[in-house]
């Protein structure tokens, strides 16, 4: 508990920890929003969400090795992942839309295994990171350090989130996506090609993850086995922030990032992942108890 005292004695340090988490948390929110999109529109929990994020990160890693500026690879990562998402939809996912939750869970779980082990083969098991060369900001006589790339990643995440929100509100495709989410049958009657909307939704989700992954590669690390925690974070944020709410996801993501960082400092960074997993379990259980008290249950 020495660390706890330290937090109170050095407010600047705790501010730095919180800030660091906040900046990362916005990236988590992106993946969470994609998860909620697929969940809401297609009724599928995409367990391979985190692997999409990692794949996006590796796109950035590979392109940066060939000399491209890491920031310029963000749209490329998004496009590559869009294609991956589209192909996955056309080969596998369209067969599981509308079927048992059991099937879609296991199928996306299988996809996540394939992706993570494939990345393991292609890039090796040890995590990698990409240096964007942004330097570090020093405030309060160097007591508070903010890495420049995390600041940029935060800003970009918010830009992407807002763009997404506008896209879903204003564009024709965004409107048909929302219509399909509300009632696929009515949408079909109104002449919306539901199958195409599903394909676009899944590909769009993958693209969001790709962009998020590119940011993760620069601001944190990517590794073949690190995907799972992003999936669970996305799920957690989606539940906390309200499914499909951009603002809620952002707030929840930022909160989660800060909480993780603080806990990691207090209990040791080796327990930080376990904290996230157990937090997910705890929040699911508490939420369920509260809903049960109102005699409602989760669907």
């Amino acid at each position, binding site marked *: 508990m020495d660390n706890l005292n330290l937090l109170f004695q050095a407010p600047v340090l705790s501010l730095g920890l919180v800030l660091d988490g906040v900046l990362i948390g916005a990236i988590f929110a992106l993946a969470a929003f994609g998860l909620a999109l697929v969940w809401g529109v297609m009724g599928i929990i995409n367990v391979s969400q985190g692997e999409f994020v990692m794949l996006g990160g590796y796109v950035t890693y590979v392109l940066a090795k060939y000399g491209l500026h890491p920031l310029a690879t963000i749209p490329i990562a998004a496009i590559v992942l869009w294609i991956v998402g589209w192909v996955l939809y056309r080969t596998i996912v369209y*067969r599981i839309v509308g079927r048992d939750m059991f099937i879609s*869970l*296991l199928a996306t779980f299988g996809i996540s295994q394939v992706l993570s082990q494939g990345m393991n083969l292609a890039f090796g098991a040890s995590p990698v990171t990409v240096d964007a060369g942004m330097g570090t900001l020093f405030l309060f006589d160097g007591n508070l350090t903010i890495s420049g790339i995390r600041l940029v990643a935060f800003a970009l995440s918010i830009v992407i989130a807002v763009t997404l929100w506008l896209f879903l509100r204003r564009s024709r495709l965004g409107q048909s996506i929302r219509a399909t989410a509300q009632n696929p049958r009515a949408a079909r009657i109104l002449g919306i090609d539901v199958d195409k909307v599903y394909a676009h939704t899944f590909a769009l989700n993958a693209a969001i993850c790709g962009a998020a992954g590119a940011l993760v590669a620069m601001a944190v690390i990517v590794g073949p086995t690190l995907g799972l925690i992003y999936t669970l974070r996305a799920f957690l944020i989606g539940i906390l922030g309200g499914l499909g709410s951009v603002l809620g996801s952002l707030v929840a993501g930022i909160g989660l990032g800060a909480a993780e960082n603080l806990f990691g400092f207090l209990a040791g960074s080796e327990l930080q992942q376990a904290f996230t997993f157990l937090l997910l379990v705890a929040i699911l259980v508490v939420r369920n108890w509260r809903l049960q008290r109102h005699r409602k249950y989760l669907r």
Partner: protein
Amino acid sequence: MSNTPRWLYLVLLAVGVFAPLLLPQIASQLAFLWIMVVFALAWDIMGGRMGYNSFGNILFFGIGCYALAVFQRDLNWGGYWVALPLGLLFGGLLASLAAVFFGVGMLGLREKYFAVGTLGLGVAAGEIAASWGYIGAGGGLSTVLMPVAGNANVYWAYIAFAVAVLTFFALKRLYAGRIGLALGAIRDDEDKAEAMGLPTTRVKTLAWAVSAFPLGVAGGIVGNMQGFIDPRDIAFAGSTYGTWMILMAILGGRGTLWGPVLGAFVFQITKELFWVYLAEWQRIALGVLIVLIVVFFPRGILGWVRERWPQRFGQRVVEAA
């Protein structure tokens, strides 16, 4: 009730009894075959019979691994041969207790919430084990070697066989009774089952505890057989053992008694015969297999056969689920 032909039991009994003696060089693979049967049967209680998709059953396996190792290390009552069965029992009980403990909160969760929650639980356990000094932390824990002359794996093959047989008949008995009906009711429509007065939470907790027990015992066996427990690669190895459980159960046909057994046999034999040639592509192949089975073969081998030749069932191989 039973319409499994007697020859099938006899063949399996013969394999269990004579194979380790005749082929001692593959005794470790045989032991794993029976462990796989236990894995698939235990997963099927939740995933198949009750329709609760648990991605975190590896938790119980890992608890069993460590429970036996710590029991042998710190207590070791009555020497190796007394401590072994006691420790296995201890591991199983501890796993069941964990199931009851987590079940209180988690079994209220439905479908995807339960699936994702258990996924988190399994991985969290590995992370915690990897940072807990008492059980060796990330460096792992060495276990006691069996004090026998010659091939210890032959003994392990018999122990694993006994565990598999016990698990099989215990589950057969369980499914034939009221609990089996209750599990089916929960799978088909939990709300209706609850409305009809079925104590669903109690049944679900019981089912999870029952499925945890053999996993805990299997964990103890594997941990001892390997001689070394690594927190992430053996005890809480979600991407190997944890995934295999699910794969084997759905491959054979979930929700049937013989399905998981068949799935375990098919999987273990193909794994040992062909897996070597796949080298590092193994785990990718595993994922592809899961996707293919789930998407095209959701009812598994037995389910498919039964759909194809329904008239032959009821009398042969499988008892009606």
